[in-house]
């Protein structure tokens, strides 16, 4: 085995320190008793208590979770269909446009996506009266639109890494196309769908800019609440909130990693 040089090893150490030191500090300071977030005033868990009594945070978190759950589910359905279409139906009318529309939302700057969707909803409301109020439904639609692209790409790459002989064999044995899809194709791409759902869920929970554009008065998602607070500077209860999120996600990712490694 070739060894990494000293230069490479020190860059790696620097890089990982760069990625993780800020997160570690947030965790440490979330247990700081002092109200001034940058001065250490002794160990305390008071900010966690305050966080759990803060109704605004709980409402925002509940709204964000509802949006993330709904949009991830629809994004997985639509994204799987799009991935199937791209990987299995090689020629159909408008395929180039379809491919472009799938990949563009992933790289489009969020301000453009957000602005275009808001102007769309405003125009739609003038023409049809819907959506009367922007909030849950408009944010969910926006999130489905950009996260279905990620699901489609994951499903497509899983399908193109898999040969079609199993599906063809099932067809040759007289399986109806719909049965073949549900009995053969879907079980094979299930891991990709799960990964896609999780990614869509995370992207939705994470989004600030697009949600800020398409939400209406009175509906703040969790990132919108956090942003309105941190605009004013460092705040101890946001440290506590960040620690909870970091702990929860790290635990989830590590458990998933161990499960996958066990199986492999």
């Amino acid at each position: 085995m070739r060894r990494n040089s000293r230069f490479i090893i020190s860059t790696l150490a620097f890089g990982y320190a760069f990625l993780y030191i800020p997160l570690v500090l947030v965790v440490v300071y979330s247990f700081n008793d002092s109200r001034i977030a940058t001065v250490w005033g002794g160990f305390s868990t008071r900010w966690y208590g305050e966080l759990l009594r803060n109704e605004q945070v709980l409402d925002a978190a509940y709204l964000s979770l509802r949006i993330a759950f709904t949009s991830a589910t629809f994004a997985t359905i639509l994204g799987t269909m799009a991935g199937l279409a791209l990987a299995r139906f090689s020629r159909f009318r408008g395929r180039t446009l379809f491919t472009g529309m799938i990949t563009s939302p992933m790289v489009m700057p969020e301000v453009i996506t957000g602005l275009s969707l808001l102007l769309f909803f405003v125009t739609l409301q003038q023409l049809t009266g819907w959506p009367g109020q922007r909030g849950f439904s408009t944010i969910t639609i926006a999130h489905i639109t950009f996260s279905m692209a990620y699901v489609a790409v994951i499903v497509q790459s899983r399908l193109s890494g898999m040969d079609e002989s199993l599906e063809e064999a099932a067809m040759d044995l007289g399986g109806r196309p719909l049965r073949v899809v549900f009995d053969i194709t879907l079980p094979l791409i299930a891991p990709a769908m799960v990964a896609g759902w999780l990614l869509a869920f995370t992207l939705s929970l994470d989004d600030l800019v697009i949600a800020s554009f398409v939400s209406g008065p009175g509906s703040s998602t969790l990132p919108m609440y956090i942003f309105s607070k941190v605009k004013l500077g460092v705040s101890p209860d946001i440290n506590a909130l960040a620690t909870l999120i970091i702990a929860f996600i790290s635990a989830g990712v590590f458990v998933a990693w161990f499960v996958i490694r066990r199986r492999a």
Partner: protein
Amino acid sequence: MATSVQDHDSLWQRLTIATPYLWLLAFFLVPFVIILKISVADPVIAQPPFTPTIDDAGKLSATADNFVFLLTDKLYAITYLRSVMMATIATVLCLALGFPMAYGIARARAETRGLLLLLIVLPFWISFLLRVYAWMGLLNNYGVLNNFLLWLGVIDQPIQILYTDFAVFVGLTYSYLPFMILPLYATLERMDLDLVEAAQDLGASPTRAFWDVTWPLARAGVVAGCLLVFIPAMGEYVIPYLLGGPEALLIGRVLFDEFFVNRDWPLASAVAVVLLLLLVVPIVFLQRSQARNAEGSA
């Protein structure tokens, strides 16, 4: 019998294609047409605050005023240039740090490689906003970095780090580093390291071997990584807002303020259209390079 299977097949196929297709047409393509439409309108004090494209007399009413204003007003030209410059510098920084890291991960032992990659991906799953926020506590005047420098004796009073361009570069590099490392890793991992060794055996210096062998072989990953950093960095809103100073006007923030603070919808739309035009070339480039990569691996 055969025809009925065929019919069933095509109906199912059509449904699979049409459902996501129609969704994207409605919620992705149509909104862009609307942005284009509003960018050629005049602002008015009304609800909605812009003039209709077809006026009451049924005549087409469109104006290029917003675009003329963007191109002639110095502030906007400078902001666009600054955004390109900031995004370019962030891309170079990501590449400088990301390349050796990706290289090191690709050459690490198989057991550690998985863990190293996981640690690159993990921050990506943690809220972007909170990761940017984490730097606010680190960089402010009474923050950890200033205290550390004071303790070292490098400085004798706190220096302004937060709310400067430096802080924006740190934030951009930090946030987009995984986007650089992952495509680089993907190409470096596939690369045959014997080639580098062969070059060195034949007398090439390590530097020479790097530029003549490693770099050309890694080029696809470099291109993909750079574009994945540059494109979103151009429209970035949160990082300049939280880490940059009040003068850190990047185009994403200008668009946001033009819309929400000044409520000039037509001008905000024109800002978006120009930003999109600036990004069309890199986006098309990225899509073609990814299509080529997909063909290469299949």
